[in-house]
């Protein structure tokens, strides 16, 4: 497996002043969900880089602080082959990372800003499938909560994670 379109976290951290906080080996325990917990509130901006394989065609869903309430709004501009589409959801229970596609391999990068100040959180990112490579997504979102982000949750939309890595980076 290899995703070549994203810089390595080390390279990104150096160039964009993000430092690697933690990483998760997604092959350990075939989890259905993973969580970066106890995130240091010194970070004002967080960056998540995931290169995941799934037990069945799936995609990642994101939550913060283990909040599964209807507190997320997101929209995604997607390209599937030559077809453009845009999907959005208000008052969702998670941030989606793709519109209609699923795949056994997904790479994504997400940023969220103002993570440690009392403001509604905003974020954006990109998401690509590897074997279903004609599908590309550009998502952005709100998390309607002013709490400091202390946990970033990544859920498999179905099945479990079977491999790859998740990296959390932060910028003060």
């Amino acid at each position, binding site marked *: 497996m290899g995703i070549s379109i994203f810089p390595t976290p080390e390279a990104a951290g150096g160039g964009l002043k993000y430092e690697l*906080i*933690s990483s*998760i080996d*997604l092959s*350990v*325990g*075939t*989890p*259905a*969900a*993973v*969580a*970066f*917990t*106890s*995130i*240091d509130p010194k970070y004002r901006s967080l960056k998540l880089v995931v290169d995941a394989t799934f037990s069945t065609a799936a995609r990642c*869903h994101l939550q913060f602080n283990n909040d*599964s309430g209807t507190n997320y709004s997101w929209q995604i501009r997607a390209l599937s082959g030559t077809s453009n*589409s845009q*999907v959005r*959801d208000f008052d969702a*229970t*998670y941030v989606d990372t793709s*519109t*209609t596609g*699923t795949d056994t391999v997904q790479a994504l990068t997400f940023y969220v800003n103002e993570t440690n100040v009392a403001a509604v959180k905003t974020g954006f990112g990109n998401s690509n499938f590897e074997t279903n490579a004609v599908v590309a997504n550009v998502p952005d979102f709100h998390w309607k909560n002013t709490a400091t982000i202390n946990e970033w949750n990544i*859920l498999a*939309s*179905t099945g*479990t*994670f079977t491999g790859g890595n998740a990296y*959390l980076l932060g910028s003060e």
Partner: protein
Amino acid sequence: MAKPNIFEINTQTGKQIVREMNEDEYAQHLLHQEKSALEQAARESEAFAAE
């Protein structure tokens, strides 16, 4: 049936835990996957209708 696992890493201590979901987490997990499947089906239906 065994419940799915959660992998947690404490980003300040580096401590990693892989554990089975508790009852509340499992209920949330089932709800999430059911909702996800329904939304996926609805979007695919909309995409098909638009073609």
